């Protein structure tokens, strides 16, 4: 009960427009969930709302994490509670070296006065950089500045490994990664797998799911979860696209919300 992320009837508005329209989902620690869904269906909106982005206004519903209503918490408080978001489009922070940033983030989540031996931090950082095939020089490079698309995604996972969250939301971390990198990232997530770690992976592609082997797959359309199932659901979607499912459920998509374009599909496997 206390070890889960529980989303109940979540309504979220962005720029005066309702995007999430009553979403329910429970992610238990120890589980891996995948969310798939057409472009514009609100997947990133869900991720931002869970993390507490000020632009994403929750108008109804609740989100409990470890029994606490986290909608009342600042984003940093949610993070310190154990929530993590790997951004679909990570921001660049000029002049802030990655390692300094990580050190401060780790310090922020330590109990008062508890010290982190610098040597240990450094060792973990180097190990994790290696795991993600990022050169040591990334430690002193400015946060995401000049990183390639794939490097940014791997740097998000690096942050996840360093911060060791209890529930991680991965927003299309696999998009833009080359084939080997998808595997590397999935292995990094799998390394955290266990009773103390849960994951909500937003993706458009089967490839990463082959490695992640999710316990549940959800389909999100127009701000709601319209279907949930096991790994086989992802295979179905990969083979047939969203249309048969939408027809079956009697859902018509608004303009602007469609299945991934050919371009993006290519990006996912390039």
């Amino acid at each position, binding site marked *: 009960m206390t070890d889960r992320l529980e989303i109940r009837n979540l309504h979220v508005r962005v720029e005066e427009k309702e995007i999430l329209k009553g979403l329910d989902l429970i992610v238990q620690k120890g589980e891996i969930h995948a969310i798939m869904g057409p472009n514009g269906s609100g997947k990133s909106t869900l991720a931002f709302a869970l993390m507490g982005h*000020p632009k994403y206004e929750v108008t109804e519903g609740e989100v409990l994490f470890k029994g606490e209503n986290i909608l009342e918490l600042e984003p940093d408080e949610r993070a310190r509670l154990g929530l993590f978001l790997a951004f679909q489009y990570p*921001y660049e922070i000029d*002049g802030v070296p990655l390692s300094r940033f990580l050190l*401060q*983030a780790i310090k922020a*989540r330590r109990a008062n006065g508890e010290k982190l031996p610098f040597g240990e931090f450094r060792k973990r950082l180097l190990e994790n950089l290696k795991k993600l095939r990022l050169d040591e020089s990334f430690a*002193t490079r400015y946060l995401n500045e000049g990183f390639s698309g794939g490097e940014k995604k791997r740097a998000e996972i690096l*942050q996840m490994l360093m911060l060791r969250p209890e529930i991680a939301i991965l927003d299309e971390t696999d998009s833009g990664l080359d084939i080997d990198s998808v595997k590397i990232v999935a292995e990094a997530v799998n390394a955290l797998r266990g009773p103390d770690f849960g994951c909500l992976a937003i993706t458009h592609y089967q490839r990463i799911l082959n490695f992640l082997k999710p316990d549940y797959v959800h389909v999100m359309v127009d701000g709601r979860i319209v279907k949930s199932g096991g790994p086989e659901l992802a295979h179905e979607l990969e083979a047939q696209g969203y249309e048969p499912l939408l027809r079956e459920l009697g859902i018509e998509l608004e303009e602007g919300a469609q299945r991934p374009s050919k371009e993006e599909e290519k990006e996912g496997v390039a």
Partner: protein
Amino acid sequence: MAEVTHLGEKRYKGAAVVEEAKEQAVFERDYSKYDFKDPTDRYEYIGKPGLSREVIEEIAHIKGEPKWMLEFRLRAYEIFLKKPMPTWGADLSAINFDEIIYYARPTDREARSWDDVPDYIKRTFEKLGIPEAERKFLAGVGAQYDSEVVYHNVRKDLEKKGVVFLSMDEGLKEFPDLVKEYFGTVIPPEDNKFAALNSAVWSGGSFVYVPKGVHVEIPLQAYFRINAASMGQFERTLIIADEGSKVHYIEGCTAPVYSRESLHSAVVELIAKPGAHLRYTTLQNWSNDVYNLVTKRAVAYEEATVEWVDANIGSRVTMKYPSVYMIGRGAKADILSVAFAGKGQHQDTGAKLIHAAPYTTGTVTSKSVSKDGGRTSYRGWLKVAQGAHHAKATVLCDALLLDEHSRSDTYPYVEIDEDHVTVGHEATVGKVGEDQIFYLQSRGIPEAEALAMIVLGFMEPFTKTLPMEYAVEFNRLIQLEMEGSVG
């Protein structure tokens, strides 16, 4: 220690591991706010407020100066009286010249060992970390307390090579001819009202001479402390880097908080002879009742490089525009200026590039942050004289506003009298993005800290030119300024 050979170069690799570990150690240290004062009853001499010929004669008498210097002072005093207060720039109306103390002598001698510095003054500099820094990573240190330099020392090996690092007063005594030849040649008293004032009542400051071809690889530092209330500090610095030499001079300044205004009005003259490399770094952190009106100018001969690295965090008002006169073919100037203006502060800073010879290169990078109604101004003058063909000048000004009440202005003046030149000017004003703050917060960093990180990142082009110990101290100061800035 990080040795960065060129300003603006990214410090990606190098001895990153060692550096970070050291950075960590200093980061954990607790810095006090510099706000502590010593009583003045043990001073050897403390002047009465107000300025007159008699005050100037008294200063010269106490110091036992040669006649030419007294004449120079008195001539400057006449110029000071005649010049009007500047009406451009910051508001100086609160300065009352009659209430300022122009000369205070805390001790009768300048020590070469900290053991010989009076205890209470020594304790002050220990709190500021100066003796420790000297032991660890400096080539020489000078410490000025109100009007006089109370401590001065330079490493023996450098002394043997002929490097001179003395207080200006000692310099005048030991090298009268050299001082007479250069003193006031780069910045004559006629230059502006405050340069005239300084010329009339100057005391302390540094005199540095680096002989031909000598490279001083680690910095020389001067530390300026104002202690008494209503004090005017008027140090005078002259640095001569002879042909092919290299030196990095750093100054730091602090003062306790009083409710009355103090005045700091320095004159700094730099001479970079052919092929010399001279960097002058300032970390100004005066308390917020100090008027900081400083004239800094350099002359760069053939193939010489002058770098002004200037950070202004403290003071109520600062007016300072470091300049470089590139008078020799191929001379280079690199001016990097950062300013932070919080509540009630006005940082009116800038830079002047004067290209007076062919193939000269000048770069100005200005970064300013305003917060809680603080105001920053960039005031620049770029001149390319006739005949300075193939001159190249780049000016880049970035301002960051942290709220709606704060303000930033740019006043660039450009004067180009030559055709074959390359000139670039770019100015931006930005706000901190909500998304960036959210990104940092999503990793557990509280909003105020996230904002401080972004501000520090914005100032990183400056910070990375500093030796690591100073960079960490600077970051810490900015963090203190940023504390409590988010409601």
